[in-house]
């Protein structure tokens, strides 16, 4: 421990620590190729050689989506914290505090609005770095608010899903986010506004079993794990090895669950195009 750790309060220390990844080399989990972190970031966290899609932080995702990188961050609605007074190895409230410091976000869903190929859109991005992107009350409330905002402003609604599923620490309040978000999806449908789901790695459990599978269009990023039950649970239940590529985007495409698998580099164009087509907007001027 150096003198900094004795003097600087923990919150600031974590900010100092966050600077370090810039000097790091990142190994591609598929090809083993080493990539300089900065290069990876510049390539939207896709390994240049192998095309492997690493997880991209929600903020970086939003930065890369809108025209000229310009967008408005929408506030996250407040939600009751820790209704169960939950504690596993540590207190849930402490855990939340840690993640808020670490990610700088209120919870696992970020909301934004702005122009995508000159068309106004409302966007939600789930952040896997925040407690596995898990669906708790705050995340559910943000999704509901985002969908309602899209209805109010008559914009398409795009969501990038990334979640292990339910927020265990909130028990049944977490499960209730499935019907709650499903009700909000109905509002989009009634308003005849496009609801586009972009499934990213991973999208599983209660998230897949609610709003993630109710889109007008389902677009998946290459190689993403998308499913209901976890692979480990299935293996334990049936005591068999799972087939190659099981629950991956391409497998879902083959089985009719997604419309297309789109590499991250083409995501912006694809989303812009389908939104404009569904909104009957002409080809963008520029």
């Amino acid at each position, binding site marked *: 421990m150096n003198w900094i750790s004795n003097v600087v309060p923990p919150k600031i220390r974590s900010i100092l620590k966050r600077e370090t990844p810039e000097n790091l080399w990142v190994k591609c989990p598929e090809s083993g190729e080493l990539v300089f972190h900065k290069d990876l970031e510049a390539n939207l966290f896709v390994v240049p050689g192998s095309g492997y899609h690493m997880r991209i932080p929600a903020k970086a995702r939003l930065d890369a989506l809108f025209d000229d990188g310009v967008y408005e961050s929408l506030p996250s609605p407040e*939600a*009751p914290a820790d*209704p*169960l007074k*939950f*504690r*596993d*190895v540590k207190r849930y409230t402490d855990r939340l505090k840690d993640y808020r410091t670490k990610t700088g976000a209120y919870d696992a869903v970020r909301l934004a609005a702005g122009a995508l190929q000159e068309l106004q859109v409302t966007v939600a991005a789930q952040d896997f770095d925040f407690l596995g992107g898990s669906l708790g*009350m705050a995340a559910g409330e943000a999704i*509901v608010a985002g969908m309602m905002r899209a209805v109010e402003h008559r914009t398409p609604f795009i969501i990038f899903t990334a979640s292990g599923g*339910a927020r*265990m*620490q*909130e*028990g*049944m*309040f*977490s*499960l*209730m986010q*499935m*019907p*709650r978000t*499903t*009700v*909000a*999806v*109905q509002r989009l449908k009634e308003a005849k506004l496009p609801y586009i789901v972009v499934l990213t790695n991973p999208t599983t*459990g*209660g998230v*897949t*079993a*609610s*709003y*993630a*599978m*109710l889109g007008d269009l389902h677009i998946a990023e290459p190689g993403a794990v998308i*499913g*209901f*039950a*976890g692979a480990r*649970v*299935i293996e334990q*239940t*049936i005591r*068999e090895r*799972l*087939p190659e590529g*099981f*629950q991956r985007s391409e497998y879902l495409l083959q*089985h*009719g*669950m997604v419309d297309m698998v789109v590499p991250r580099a083409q995501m912006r164009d694809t989303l812009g195009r389908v939104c404009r087509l569904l909104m009957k907007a002409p080809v963008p001027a520029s």
Partner: protein
Amino acid sequence: MASYLDFEKPVAELEARVEDLRALSEKKDSPNIGEELAKLEAKAAKALADLYAALTPWQKTQVARHPQRPHCVDYIAGLIEDFTPLAGDRKFAEDEAIICGLGRFRGQSVAVIGQEKGFDTASRLKHNFGMVKPEGYRKAVRVMELADRFGLPVISFVDTAGAFPGIEAEERGQAEAIARATEAALVQGTPNVATVIGEGGSGGALGIAACNVVLMLEHSIYTVASPEASASILWRDSSRAQDAATSMKVTAQDLMKFGIIDGIVAEPVGGAHRDPEATIRSVGDAVASALARFAEFSPEAVRAFRQEKFLGIGRGKV
């Protein structure tokens, strides 16, 4: 022959002594034994009542899974006249983990949807232990849409450890099937009432429980993931299921307090399995009064009520 749960051991011992004494009193009619017997019976009854008045969440989990607890088929037999089962999702297969059908509930035409776990090895296999596959949820959607079109209320009975986790279920879109079933229940233009009669396991339960009124039997549980699965996620140790059941607030009483469910149906002393008939009658009464509340509602009103109810969960009440 009653089968006892581990924690019922003191009651089991008392009741065994009652039985012994009764057998003895039938042989020789000694007045002393009669008095003794009455005393012991009272003691056993009190022990049972005391035990069940203070069940822990883990004990409730065990009661909810009790092998002799009345199942979906029992509720249908006891409550639904002219029951006419309907099979198949019209897409792939028939899934017997979910029983669907039409029938009369206290004179009124209704649609019924319920999960059935089975009661012996053969029927458990037939019903896949109540673990529903995509076909089952799609059959439920079909029946909900049918009910909607003909203006029939939907009564559902929830009893599953969870949706089936298997390769073929994933292949055929288990997640999508659950999402669509939840959606179909939420947009239903006729009243729907769900009763958790045993285990309400996660999304697999929710698929048939996004209803105007959600009831739970007194000793049933409703969970975001089964206590075993929760323990393995939270502590990486499924043997801590007991801790998970306690900390995750899975009982009817907790969920009523949280405003997540709408009512609790009392069970006979000692649990539903001690008097299935009385339990089924109580559930019938509760379902009837729940449906009566919506008798005058228009389809729009019944839908709006349900959707607002779910949107309101967790807002300001916690």
